[in-house]
C-alpha cells in the first residue's frame, strides 16, 4: 500500500526561474526503502522538502499516509522525521537534551523521553557523550545524533538527505547498518544520494532524477536491465572519425558529448579489447582509456543521460 504519494509535483522558486522540480510523480510503499538518485541540483532536496512540508509546491500534490502536506501539515509532521544534509542541532542544549526536548515537542512523557533517549544514544554509539555540548561533537557524531533525534518520536517515515555525504568510511558503514535495522523495524525510508553504490546497496526501488524529472524508476535490478547489454567496454577516444560509425559493427554504441579529453564511447559487445582497439586505429582514432562496463547504476545513469555523474 502506498504510504507516500507524489503526483505531478512542480516547484519553481521564483517566477521566471527554471523549475527545480518539473513534474515528479512516484509512490513509496509502507516499509519500503526508496532512493532518489541523481547529480547535485537534480531536484532531490526540493522533492524531499515538499514531502516534509518545508517546500510549498508550485503545483501538484503530495500526501503522506493520506494527509496532504499543505493542508494537513501538522498531521504529516506527526508521521515523519528528517535527517538533513547540514547539521541543524539545537546548539543551546546538550546531546541528551536535544533528544528529550524533541520528544517533548511530540508529546512524550518525561520518563519515556529519558529512557528512549538513552536507548537511542547507545544504539548510535553515543553513550557516555550524552551530557556534552553539541559544539564539541564531530561531524560524524552530529550526524548520528540527528538520526537519534529523528527516531525519538517513532516516525512512520524517515527522510535522509544525502546521509553519507562527508562521512568517513567507517561512519558510512555504521549508517548503512542502521538503515538495515530501520527496515527491520518497518520504518518507511526515503533517502537521496548521488552515490550509486549506496543506492544499489540500500534501496528496494530507485528513482533516477535529472533536471527536475524522474527519468527512470525501478528496482536496482530493473534499472540495470535498462542497459543494452550487461557487459561491454567504455573507451575514451580522440580523433576526427565518428566513433558511432567505427564501432557499430560490434554491437550497440553510445557516444557521450565531446570534452577536452575527447569522447567516451560505450560499446555493448563481448568482442576482445584488441579488436576494438584495432578498429579505432584503422579509423585514425586514438584510444586514451578503457573501462569495463559492469552494469552498475552509474552505467545506467550514463546510459540514460549521456553524462557522467561526477
Amino acid at each position, binding site marked *: 500500500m502506498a504510504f507516500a504519494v507524489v503526483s505531478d509535483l512542480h516547484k519553481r*522558486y521564483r517566477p521566471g526561474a527554471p523549475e527545480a522540480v518539473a513534474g515528479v510523480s512516484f509512490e513509496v510503499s509502507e516499509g519500503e526503502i526508496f532512493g532518489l538518485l541523481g547529480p547535485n541540483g537534480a531536484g532531490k532536496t*526540493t522533492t524531499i*522538502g515538499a514531502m*516534509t*512540508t*518545508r*517546500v*510549498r509546491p508550485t503545483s501538484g500534490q503530495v500526501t503522506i499516509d493520506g494527509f496532504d502536506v499543505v493542508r*494537513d*501539515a*501538522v*498531521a504529516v*509532521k*506527526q508521521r*515523519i*522525521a*528528517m535527517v*538533513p544534509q*547540514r*547539521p*541543524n*542541532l*539545537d*546548539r*543551546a*542544549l546538550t546531546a541528551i*537534551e536535544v533528544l528529550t*526536548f*524533541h520528544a*517533548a*515537542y*511530540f*508529546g*512524550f512523557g518525561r520518563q*519515556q523521553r529519558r*529512557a*528512549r533517549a538513552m*536507548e537511542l544514544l547507545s*544504539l548510535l554509539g553515543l553513550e557516555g557523550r550524552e551530557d556534552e555540548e553539541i559544539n564539541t561533537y564531530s561531524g560524524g557524531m552530529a550526524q548520528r545524533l540527528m538520526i537519534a*533525534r529523528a527516531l525519538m*518520536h*517513532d*516516525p512512520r517515515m524517515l527522510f535522509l538527505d544525502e546521509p553519507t555525504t562527508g562521512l568517513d568510511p567507517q561512519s558510512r558503514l555504521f549508517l548503512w547498518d*542502521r538503515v538495515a*535495522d*530501520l527496515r*527491520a*523495524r518497518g520504518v518507511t525510508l526515503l533517502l537521496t544520494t548521488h552515490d550509486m553504490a549506496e543506492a544499489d546497496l540500500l534501496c528496494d526501488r530507485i528513482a533516477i532524477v535529472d533536471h527536475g524529472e524522474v527519468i527512470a524508476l525501478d528496482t536496482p535490478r530493473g534499472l540495470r536491465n535498462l542497459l543494452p547489454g550487461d557487459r561491454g567496454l567504455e573507451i575514451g577516444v580522440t580523433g576526427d572519425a565518428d566513433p558511432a560509425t567505427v564501432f557499430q559493427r560490434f554491437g550497440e554504441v553510445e557516444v557521450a558529448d565531446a570534452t577536452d579529453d575527447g569522447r567516451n564511447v560505450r560499446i555493448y559487445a563481448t568482442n576482445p579489447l584488441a579488436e576494438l582497439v584495432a578498429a579505432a586505429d584503422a579509423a585514425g582514432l586514438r584510444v586514451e582509456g578503457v573501462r569495463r562496463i559492469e552494469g552498475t547504476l552509474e552505467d545506467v545513469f550514463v546510459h540514460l543521460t549521456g553524462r557522467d555523474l561526477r
Partner: protein
Amino acid sequence: MSAPVVQAPQLGQRRAQITAFKAMCGRDCWVILRHDLAGFLAQSLLQPLFFLFIFGRVLPEIGAAQGSYGAQLLPGIIALTLFLTSLQNTALPLVIDFSFTKEIEDRLLAPLSAWALAVQKMVMASLRGIVAGLAIIPLAALILPGGVDFADVSWLGFVVLLLVGPLAGASVGLLLGTAVEPQKISTMFAVTLTPLLFTGATFYPWQALDTLRWFQVLTLLNPLTYLSEGMRGALTTIPALGAGWVALGLVVATAIFGTLGVRGFTRRATD
C-alpha cells in the same frame, strides 16, 4: 535494533499543537535558566541601567537636569526595557536560526503550524522582556536620587502594560527578524533601533513636546511612544497620553507588525 520502548502518543492535531507549543516554551525557559541567565540579564539590563545612571543621577548631580527628572525618566526606561528586550530577543535569534544554524528547522518539523511557532517565539521573547522590565525597578530604586515612588500607581494599568507592551516589541522584532536578508541585518538594526530608542517618549513626556509640534506628531508613529506614555500615566501623576490612545496605539501597532511579522516568518519557514 530493539523494538521501541513506547509508541508515539496519538494526539489530535489541536492537542498536538498545544503540546508542542508548551514544550517549546519549556525548552526556552530551560535554556535561559540553565545555560544563559547571566548573559540574558547583562544583555537586557546594561543599557537601561546606564540610561538611568547618566540621565537620572549624573545629569541632575552636575546641574544639567532637574532633580525630579528621574521620576519622569523611570516609566520611560521601564517601557524601553520591556519593548527593546522583547524586540531584540525575537529578532536576533530568528536571524541566526534562519540564516546560519538552521536550528529552526527542527522546530518547524515539530507538529506545530508555522504561524503558531512565530507566536511562540513572540511569547517567549515577551516573557524575557517582562523579567527584564521588572528587574529594572529595584535597580532604579538604588540608582535614582529620589528612589522609586509607587504611591500613585495604577496597578491595573501597570499590569496590562507589562503584558501588552512586550508583545508590541516582539511583533516589531518578528518583522525585523524575518524581513531582510541576513547580510543586511546589521544595517537594518542600525537604522531602526536608534530612531525607535529616541522617538519613543522614553526620555521626555510626550505632552512636553507641544512646542516642537512636528516632532510630537512624528513620535506617534513609534509604538514605544504609547508604551512609555502609558507607563508614565500608570506610575506617575505627570500628564500623559490618555489610556484610550495608549490602548489604541499599542493594539494597532501589535496587529500591524504582528501580521506582517507572521507573514514574513511563514515565508521564511517554507520555500
